[in-house]
């Protein structure tokens, strides 16, 4: 699986830079696919997510309190941004710092399930972002991705040919 980190310029602000991920040269990033899949049926929920991302980018920064506890192994910063107060959707993100966020995919969480693992779609979306998280974390450790502009933005090598190539 090849993927690339893409900056979503329209969502960025003075307090945070917003990225998503393009998998295998697909036209849309994971976040755009989330919007295409959910925006019509869950308009007010997605609208609330929009307000939250806007506030984080322009006003408050990416604070961990705004997200549900990390989903994933320790060290994998996969967080869950919810559409309050409805809580019908799950959208998975990677919070790198208080100023950088990577938006992934997600979907509706059926009421009858307790954990995302019980839903194939949510499980797949969560797994996608975990693989991305592992690869990006390794590049940061190796210094191949680093911070610029006082920690507001990332720079470096954003193209991953195959996450399993990274040691």
């Amino acid at each position, binding site marked *: 699986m090849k993927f*690339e980190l*893409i900056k979503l310029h*329209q969502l960025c602000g003075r307090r945070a830079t917003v990225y998503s991920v393009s998998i295998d040269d697909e036209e849309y*990033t994971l976040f755009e696919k989330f919007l295409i899949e959910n*925006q019509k049926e869950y308009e007010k929920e997605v609208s609330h997510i*929009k*307000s939250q991302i806007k*506030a984080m980018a322009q006003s408050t920064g990416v604070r961990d*309190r705004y997200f549900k506890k990390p989903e994933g192994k320790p060290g994998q910063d996969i967080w869950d941004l919810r559409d309050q107060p409805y809580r019908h959707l799950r959208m998975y993100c990677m919070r790198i710092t208080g100023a950088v966020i990577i938006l992934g995919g997600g979907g509706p969480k059926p009421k009858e399930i307790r954990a995302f693992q019980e839903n194939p779609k949510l499980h797949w979306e969560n797994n996608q972002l975990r693989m991305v998280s592992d690869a990006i974390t390794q590049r940061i450790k190796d210094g191949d991705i680093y911070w610029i502009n006082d920690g507001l*933005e990332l720079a470096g090598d954003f193209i991953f040919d195959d996450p399993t190539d990274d040691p």
Partner: protein
Amino acid sequence: MKKQIHKTARIRTSSVLEAFLSLGSPEEDKRVENRMVLAAKIDDALKAQGIGKKQFADMMGQKPSVITKWLSGGHNFTVDTLTDIQRVLDVRLLALDEAMPQQQVYRYVAISSVQIIENKWCIDDGQSYSLPNIPVESAKTTPQHFQRELKLA
């Protein structure tokens, strides 16, 4: 010394993101932002004072789960709750101590006691009042004890 050139991520703009940003309203955005800012201010005050969530819950007489909700950025606080948090954490959340605007002075007077001097309504207390949009002559022909509200000029 040569300026280091950093390779940044490819930038993407799209109609999908444009449609996303046009959802909702600026009013709703502001409501969400204000809730998140309040949560951030409370969280910063807790961290600055080294107060944990459980301790803060005890100080406020609340369950820790309520504090989690407060700090999540989604809670719609009441004025009373913000007042209490201000007091407990000594943090400014409400801007109510700013100077109040000067009050307008209104008086009710009997129309029969009104005179027109230099296009201003005057009554026998020596003050002059302005009352736009009300024709003076029509007011003077109304019954003697008809009263109007006059704003201090």
